């Protein structure tokens, strides 16, 4: 084995913290480079060990511990937990309002709109069954129910758990709104 390879093996053994053989120790004594490298490793080990005793400030320690405690207990500083709860609440509230305001009218409207898919004119059918005041109330209720909370249909569907129905109704209301030239705000 060449001297260079021997030096490399010895350095690697020292770096890995292996016990050095007598032959290796003898080589180090005779080799200036290995002697220097050994001293460097020992210095680095010593300084590194001292550095690892150094610490972040007490203020930083307290900050981390307090924040971690709040996060783990799902407190005010737990943004992820708070967001899920808040969206769930809004979704449920939107869904409840949707049902309350629309009430029976939505059931009829839904039926009408489904019928509309069967190529019956939406406007004509709606005007046959609702007064203009009732139509206005329905439009307002639907838009407030969802848009008033700043929720998109997708959000309300995901958090309110009534995705399928809302998606179907969304499509129908899109047709309805287009026909009546009504703009829904905040609804995707």
């Amino acid at each position, binding site marked *: 084995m060449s001297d260079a390879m021997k030096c490399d093996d010895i350095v690697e053994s020292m770096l890995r913290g292996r016990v050095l053989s007598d032959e290796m120790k003898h080589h180090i004594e005779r080799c200036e480079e290995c002697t220097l490298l050994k001293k460097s490793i020992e210095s680095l080990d010593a300084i*590194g060990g001292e550095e690892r005793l150094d610490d972040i400030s007490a203020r930083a320690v307290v900050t981390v511990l307090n924040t971690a405690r709040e996060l783990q207990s799902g407190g005010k500083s737990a943004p992820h937990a708070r967001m899920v709860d808040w969206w769930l609440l809004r979704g449920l509230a939107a869904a409840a309002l949707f049902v309350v305001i629309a009430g029976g009218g939505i059931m009829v409207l839904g039926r009408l709109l489904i019928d509309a898919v069967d190529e019956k004119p939406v406007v004509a059918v709606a005007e046959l069954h609702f007064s203009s005041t009732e139509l206005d109330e329905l439009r307002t209720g639907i838009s407030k129910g969802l848009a008033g909370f700043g929720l998109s249909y997708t959000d309300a569907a995901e958090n309110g758990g009534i995705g399928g129905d809302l998606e179907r109704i969304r499509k129908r209301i899109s047709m309805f709104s287009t026909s009546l030239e009504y703009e829904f705000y905040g609804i995707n």
Partner: protein
Amino acid sequence: MADEDRELILGLKRRDVVSFEVIFEKYRRPVFSYIRGLVRDRALAEDCVQEVFLELVKNADRIDVARGVRGWLFRVARNKAVDAIRRNGRRALEGDEAVSSESIACSPDAEMIEKEGRVGLMKAISGLQDEEREIIMMRFFGGLTFAEAEQVSGISLNTLIWRCRRALKKLAKDLAADNSGRI
């Protein structure tokens, strides 16, 4: 090491505050030492350490119990340090060196010599290439084994050892030049 941390990681996944505090107490100093060596600024390193441990709380569910938390912490620490360097640019060891210089001037002789050696070594480390300095930081300041450093950095074991050997040769050369200059 993985066995010792196993119960702590399971506790962390159960949102046990005490488990987190034990892990924090155990690893905050080596993580701080490692990050400070990379970002070279104490205040910045403190910010990074805080971010690392808050990530630990938020992502406890993702930690692989079998692999332990140590490698995970240093991996995150490395990412935070790299992000901090990108945001803040590279800093020389100005703050740390200034303090060391002042303390050397006031020290008794033997202490002064030791501190000079330390400052010299830290200066030499600053002069290394990034990849060389990183393995020095992981191995000597973070206290990682090469196997752990491989996990943290994603760089092969042989490459890490080769870089470390190269870094050591440079450091040894700088220190030898420094010592002969003083004679």
